[in-house]
């Protein structure tokens, strides 16, 4: 994950907050639940964002969140990419 790459939701995913977790349904209709750092990072990714911006947004909106650290953000992005829920834009 490079520092200048910007991440955003892959097209076709709809989602809602539900009691601290994120419920998502993908283009194929399958549902996924994201918890902890993955949920925070997903919500922070509504607009394209670099890892630093994701960290900032997560920390800003959920100051009490335990997931707002660089390592956890990177891990969450990796997890979301593995689930095909993220696209990379403006990669250098």
């Amino acid at each position, binding site marked *: 994950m490079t520092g200048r790459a910007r991440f*955003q*939701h892959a097209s076709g995913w*709809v989602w*809602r907050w*539900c*009691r601290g977790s994120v*419920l998502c*349904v993908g*283009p194929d209709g399958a549902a996924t639940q994201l918890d902890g750092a993955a949920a925070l990072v997903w919500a922070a990714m509504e607009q394209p964002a670099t890892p630093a911006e994701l960290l900032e947004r997560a920390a800003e909106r959920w100051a009490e969140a335990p997931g707002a650290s660089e390592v956890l953000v990177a891990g969450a992005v990796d997890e979301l990419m593995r689930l095909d829920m993220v696209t990379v834009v403006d990669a250098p």
Partner: protein
Amino acid sequence: MTPPASTTTRSEADGAGRGDRDPIDRVLRDLAGWGLDSTGPIGEVAGETPGLALVERAVEQRLIGVLAVAADAGVIGLHPKAAEAAHDRHRAALLWCLNLEARLLRVVELLDGAQIHPLVLKGPALAHLDEADPSLRTFADIDLLVRATDLDRAVEVLAGFGAGRGPAERRPGFDHRFAKSVTLRFADGVELDLHRSLSDGVHGFRVPLARLFESPGRLPLAGRTLACLSGVHRTLHTAYHLVLGSPAPRLMSLRDLANHLIQRPDPDEVVAEARAWGGEVVLATAVSRAVESLAIDVPRWERWAGSVRPTRREAAIIERQRVEGSGIGRGKIDALRELRSPRDRVAYGWALMAPTAAHLRSRGLRRRDLALAR
């Protein structure tokens, strides 16, 4: 319902009763206004049975999102089993909403491909554009407005995608000339209302439909932007839905309108549009109902609604439409009178009196049943 003897509410404590005898009704009303202009405590519903009853009623009234979020925020005290039930029901409702939104994206894509460009109505637009958090506003189906000239083709396109229609068309040409909407159902239970207009009857015929498409709103969803009603049109539509949509509207409908009135404290723009729709009395009736029921603080709206003097005829038309809905009754004679063209009047009247055999069969009726009903 179990007698809610152990239920205590803020309304009881401060004497702000608004005609509800059942304490659970009062809690539901407080929930309907919660998070709009007040985020104060609602109180406690002590005991498992009253708590579970509240959850069921909140589901019926489409307030399960507000209840679950309010319970999480600690502004309403619930028995642990009731709190768990509220969150389970909320989660299920949200998953259904997401399923509907995924379908909405696909349906709009298909219609766009056929050069039919719909406007999203109600649930998804209100949830994303008007509520503080879309999780608060759940919905059960999809509503799209299409131009009357596109309605029949839209039904065909969606039939090719597995959507079956409910009752057959009343008479050939009835849908695109006179119907409020055509209901389609998918095999998995998803229901889609394809609207020609925003209301049944007189007021549905009065809506200048072309204006809705001239200045649409924008609904960002899943990386795409869908067209929906503009903010002013959404305000009016919520008012129409509250007054004309059902004899017993859900509290969610009150909340929808109250939210719009609070967010748009100056009535001028909406009132001007209501005049263009021939719907000032509908709007004033809706505003008065929201203010009385939810005790919201919208002084300019209250003053305006208080200044509207409905004629006896207009009040009667609204009342008949409210009670009859899409059923057949005196309100349909009002609607027939509203039509300007003699040709339309004849076609509409004939369709009311003589629906096709296919239409009757699709509704499980026989011609003899109609004669008996008359």
